């Protein structure tokens, strides 16, 4: 027996213990239970992972309970571990465990300590449900659940207005995506009569016409859901605001796991998506556009967490670019490496924020590298990884995506070029962050600066482990052109994803593109070091020349303002004048009031009959009796 159910059961148990007993039993209890629950889940995931590798067809199934049985439709609580969910399991529980350990140090002394760990455990539970479920139904339960936990954790400091607003925003944007997922699931049920992934993937090619309107509609709706969860255009604006939550939350939910749920869904249904070339093109273009848009915004942000948030949006765009050109394996590979280095960077930024007393503004940082040596080194390694410096993990996954964007039959040189520009910008803004935070002169408030010291072990240990993973994680998928070791990711995902028509391109092109992107990344690093090695002075000279571009980037391309004037304000006008003023007041209210008025006037008319005189009642009663008798004879 494989006992898959144990994996989500541990975090659920942790949630119950922390949520219901954590307040009474105190912080030591919570500190013990919270990380342990996820650690146990990680141990069980490791066992399952290796069992899955040896199992027939690399799949483990477990039937737990029949939920709905109606006619020949059946939906159960069934768990599946295969190549995709196995990898996700390890990422979720592994990175999740490190972040739980980190939170012990980071959240120390917060008032809602037990509440935080309860939510975090609950999140891990729902995320595991999402990836383990073998049908849309169970995935959707997890999908909604992680949305809920994201809402709760963004609004963790709910007494702060901005946090409450951000939580609401995240929830609403996710709702729009959920509408897409739900509609797509209904369409799938109508056309397949089943909502199991295995059935849908196996029968997609026979039941649906290639490139037909139905499959295009289904996949586009699913992708709408993915844009909500994974923060792509047009629904990406919630993610940067989600940084209002505590930093471990940003690392776990808004960088490493939840935001990759959309990618998980696309990868899971690769056989369905390849039937709709139009959708594939949409995904690739949206992914590439998001990647470059978010990168341009990240360049000018001064809040350290916002830089990382836009970087996350940008990297997620990368992954969708990979999905859109049919490189599902490369996309999932980037999910993995990104989980390592982005979680690392977020946790590192949290360590910095903690050290300088919850200051997130990079204008008040600088020269921290000697005071926070471990944080500095680990974040530097994470930056090298995300920038695609050779032989760090991001290099392998990013170049795999760029190459596929160029050479795949769904790809084009244009997509490659956008990705290439983004890669350079990524290196630039990441090194800008490193220089502004750790180098140059100190801009930290003087009385804070005296107390700056390295974070405790519970914070630095996860940083070190993640840094190690960020460095070596890429050797899992070394491209073919190196001819050193086989491309692990392709071996691993052998026959799992849908096949797409072979692309073009040869080895020398691949080498050229790879060298080009490395040179560009190094050049960006050099530029960042020239501009920012001593703070903002040099950059502000440049800024005055390009004021309009600076404003555009700083204000996030005015997307929030655009949504405000295009959707929110018209929506508000529509509601107040038409829906409320006209319909609600004149139709609904009037109907309700008229019902009441009719009842009242009828009552007023017949009220005098009840005058309290018993003999009057007796008279009426008698007359009634005689009338009935007369009628009956």
């Amino acid at each position: 027996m494989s006992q898959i159910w144990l994996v989500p059961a541990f975090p659920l148990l942790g949630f119950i213990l922390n949520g219901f007993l954590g307040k009474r039993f105190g912080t030591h209890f919570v500190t013990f239970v919270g990380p342990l629950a996820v650690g146990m889940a990680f141990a069980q995931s490791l066992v399952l992972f290796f069992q899955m590798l040896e199992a027939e067809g690399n799949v483990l199934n477990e039937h737990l309970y029949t939920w709905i049985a109606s006619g020949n439709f059946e939906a159960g609580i069934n768990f599946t571990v295969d190549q995709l969910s196995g990898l996700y399991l390890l990422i979720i529980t592994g990175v999740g465990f490190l972040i739980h350990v980190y939170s012990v140090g980071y959240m120390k002394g917060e008032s809602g300590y037990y509440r935080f760990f309860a939510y975090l455990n609950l999140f891990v539970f729902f995320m595991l449900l999402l990836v383990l479920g073998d049908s849309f139904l169970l995935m959707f339960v997890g999908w909604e659940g992680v949305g809920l936990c994201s809402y709760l954790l963004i609004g963790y400091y709910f007494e702060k207005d901005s946090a409450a607003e951000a939580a609401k925003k995240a929830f609403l944007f996710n709702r729009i995506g959920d509408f897409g997922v739900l509609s797509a699931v209904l369409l799938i049920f109508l056309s397949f009569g089943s909502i199991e992934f295995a059935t849908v993937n196996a029968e997609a090619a026979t039941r649906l016409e290639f490139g037909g309107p139905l499959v295009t509609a289904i996949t586009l709706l699913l992708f709408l859901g993915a844009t909500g969860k994974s923060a792509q255009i047009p629904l990406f604006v919630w993610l940067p605001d989600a940084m209002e939550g505590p930093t471990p939350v940003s690392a776990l939910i808004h960088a490493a796991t939840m935001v990759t749920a959309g990618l998980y869904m696309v990868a899971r249904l690769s056989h369905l998506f390849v039937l709709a070339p139009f959708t594939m093109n949409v995904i690739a273009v949206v992914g590439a556009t998001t990647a470059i848009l978010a990168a341009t915004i990240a360049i000018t942000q001064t809040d350290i967490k916002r830089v990382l948030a836009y970087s996350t949006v940008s990297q997620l765009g990368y992954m969708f670019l990979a999905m859109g050109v049919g490189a599902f394996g490369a996309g999932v590979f980037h999910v993995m490496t990104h989980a390592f280095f982005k979680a690392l960077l977020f946790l590192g930024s949290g360590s910095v924020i903690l050290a300088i007393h919850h200051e997130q503004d990079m204008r008040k940082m600088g020269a921290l590298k000697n005071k926070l040596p471990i944080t500095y080194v680990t974040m530097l390694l994470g930056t090298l990884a995300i920038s695609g410096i050779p032989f760090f993990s991001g290099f392998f996954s990013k170049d795999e995506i760029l190459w596929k964007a160029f050479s795949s039959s769904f790809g084009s040189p244009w997509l490659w070029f956008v990705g290439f520009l983004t890669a350079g910008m990524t290196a630039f803004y990441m090194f800008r962050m490193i220089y502004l935070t750790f180098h140059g002169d100190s801009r930290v408030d003087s009385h804070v600066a005296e107390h700056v010291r390295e974070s405790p072990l519970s914070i630095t240990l996860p940083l070190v482990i993640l840094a190690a993973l960020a460095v070596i994680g890429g050797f899992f998928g070394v491209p073919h052109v190196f001819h050193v070791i086989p491309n692990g990711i392709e071996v691993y995902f052998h026959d799992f994803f849908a096949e797409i028509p072979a692309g073009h391109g040869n080895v020398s092109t691949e080498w050229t593109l790879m060298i080009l992107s490395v040179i560009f990344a190094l050049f960006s690093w050099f530029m960042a070091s020239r501009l920012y090695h001593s703070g903002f002075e040099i950059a502000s000279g440049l800024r005055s020349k390009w004021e309009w571009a600076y404003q555009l980037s700083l204000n996030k391309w005015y997307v929030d303002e655009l949504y405000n004037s295009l959707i929110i304000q018209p929506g508000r006008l529509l509601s107040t004048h038409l829906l409320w003023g006209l319909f609600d007041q004149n139709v609904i209210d009037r109907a309700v009031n008229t019902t009441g008025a009719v009842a009242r006037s009828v009552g007023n008319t017949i009220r005098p009959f009840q005058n309290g005189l018993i003999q009057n009642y007796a008279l009426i009663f008698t007359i009634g009796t005689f009338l009935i008798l007369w009628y009956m004879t």
Partner: protein
Amino acid sequence: MIPIEHILLLSALLFIIGVLGVMLRRNVIVIFMSIELMLNAVNLSFVTFARSLDSMTGVVFIFFIIVVAAAEAVVGLSIILSIFRTRKTLNIDEFNLLKW
């Protein structure tokens, strides 16, 4: 042997006297007695039919009615008594609070 019509006529007269008593008299106790009169008028017709049809069913009914009437007398007189203690009157037109 008294003809059956005579007894039934007597029963009907007693019943009508009871009905008129309930509707016209003001004293609660008299009204109450009128109700008893109606019950007994019904009893009379029951027993008449029972004898003319030579069946015991009607007689059994009478026992039920007498038991109910006894219970009703207890409850009704207690209510009247307690009303009298609070209102110091037995005029039914004064008992008119339960309206609208």
